[in-house]
């Protein structure tokens, strides 16, 4: 990405609210330059800078997602919990909410494989949720270590993805839905921890019994 392309993408972000994730938004970005051009960028110029067809739109979607991720970090306050961080991220969806289903559809249809083989590629959506989760964990200084580092991020990814999906259909209830998911996940996590602890005790007990019986000596 060259400096000019990056600059124009940044200028196109406020236009998403009115024009969606479209080539028009990219085309109109030049009118917001410090020295604006007289006309929007011609279609061939949009292609030259951002890619042909829907690739240009995907470039804009990625730019918007990166910007939202950056704002998560900038707007984070001290002592925010994971729920607060994720809710703030959901709030940043609100101005462009009506355009998000199309944006995610664009990402999901960017498979490098021919359409009949893989009509929908969920990888970019999963990657998006993983990046939000990772950023949120980084902001709240998650102390997860070793395997729990991964399980923590995986569970938050799934929770965020579910909450975001819920937000698309019911924006007002999304924060409460997110809270309930986090609470359930916490309870499930506690139950899993307790089960693991109990299994560990049982294992140690059996090992002690076997050792004391002299079978392995």
């Amino acid at each position: 990405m060259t400096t000019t392309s990056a600059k124009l993408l940044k200028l196109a972000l406020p236009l998403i609210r009115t024009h969606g994730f479209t080539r028009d938004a990219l085309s109109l970005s030049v009118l917001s330059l410090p020295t604006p051009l007289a006309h929007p960028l011609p279609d061939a110029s949009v292609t030259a800078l951002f890619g042909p067809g829907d690739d240009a739109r995907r470039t804009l979607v990625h730019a918007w997602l990166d910007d939202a991720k950056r704002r998560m970090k900038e707007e984070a306050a001290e002592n925010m919990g994971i729920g607060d961080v994720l809710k703030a991220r959901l709030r940043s969806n609100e101005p462009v909410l009506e355009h998000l289903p199309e944006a995610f559809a664009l990402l999901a249809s960017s498979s490098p494989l021919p359409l009949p083989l893989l009509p929908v590629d969920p990888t970019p959506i999963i990657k998006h949720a993983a990046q939000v989760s990772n950023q949120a964990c980084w902001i709240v200084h998650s102390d997860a270590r070793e395997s729990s580092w991964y399980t923590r991020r995986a569970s938050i990814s799934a929770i965020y993805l579910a909450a975001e999906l819920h937000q698309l259909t019911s924006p007002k209830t999304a924060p409460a839905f997110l809270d309930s998911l986090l609470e359930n996940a916490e309870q499930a996590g506690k139950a899993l921890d307790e089960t693991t602890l109990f299994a560990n005790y049982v294992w140690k007990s059996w090992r002690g019994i076997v050792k004391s019986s002299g079978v392995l000596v």
Partner: protein
Amino acid sequence: MQATRSIRLPRKLSACRLIHNHSILRSSDPSGRTTSFGFRTVPEESKESLVKGVFDSVASKYDLMNDASSLGVHRLWKDSFVDTLKPGRKGPLRCIDVAGGTGDIALRILDHARENYADRETTVEIVDINAQMLKEGFTRFKKTMYHNTPQVSFHEANAQELPASQFKNDSYDLYTITFGIRNCTSIPAVLSEAYRVLKPGATFACLEFSKVNNPLLSTLYDQYSFTVIPLLGTILAGDRDSYQYLVESIRKFPSQPEFAQMIRDAGFSTGGDFDGGAWTDLWGGIASIHTGVKI
């Protein structure tokens, strides 16, 4: 003929279009500048006559040889090139097609605009340094509906120094140059002129042979280029040396990232330095479409 013979250029300036090679080398030669002519280094002054000789030799069989040496693939590349630009999609464009004497690209631009967008207002000004090539193009256009319309005009001029009185600053929406820029003595001069004549926000687009990155394909391509193409030149045009030179000139052209940088150095903005960004490789990089935007 609707052709506008803009000016007769002095010999020392007429260095573009069907001139093979581009890179300017500095040397201790008393005459100053040298440039490459295929794999040879020659004084700039000599190059023009050498290249003119080459293209005078191949002009009458130019299309036939293009078809034979590329197995017709150059037509697909040109189609793809114009399809990428989508002329006429957002209204009529004023286009300049440089080194476009035979009218290949101009015809595709006009057809694309008309067939896809019912656009009969897009215009193309075909510029070439070689009058013979322009004549070929003019004859071709006489067979089309665009003949004797304001949609097409022919101009004999040097891409490195387009006459400012005729090709005014900030006046075109689209600049195309296809398989021509590598033949120019100074690529930066051509790019600089392209930047001058384009409107702010307008597009520069270049289709040119490039570097093949896949080692296996590159080996096969080299074998084909250095054995089959000169042989075809001998058989079809009775001229082996000219086609040997043509192949060599392709090898001397800058790689994709280097040419993208040259485009940026001329003032254009481009996409990133990767396939699908500043350039789009065709057939593994045998040819590439380079684009830039004047902002």
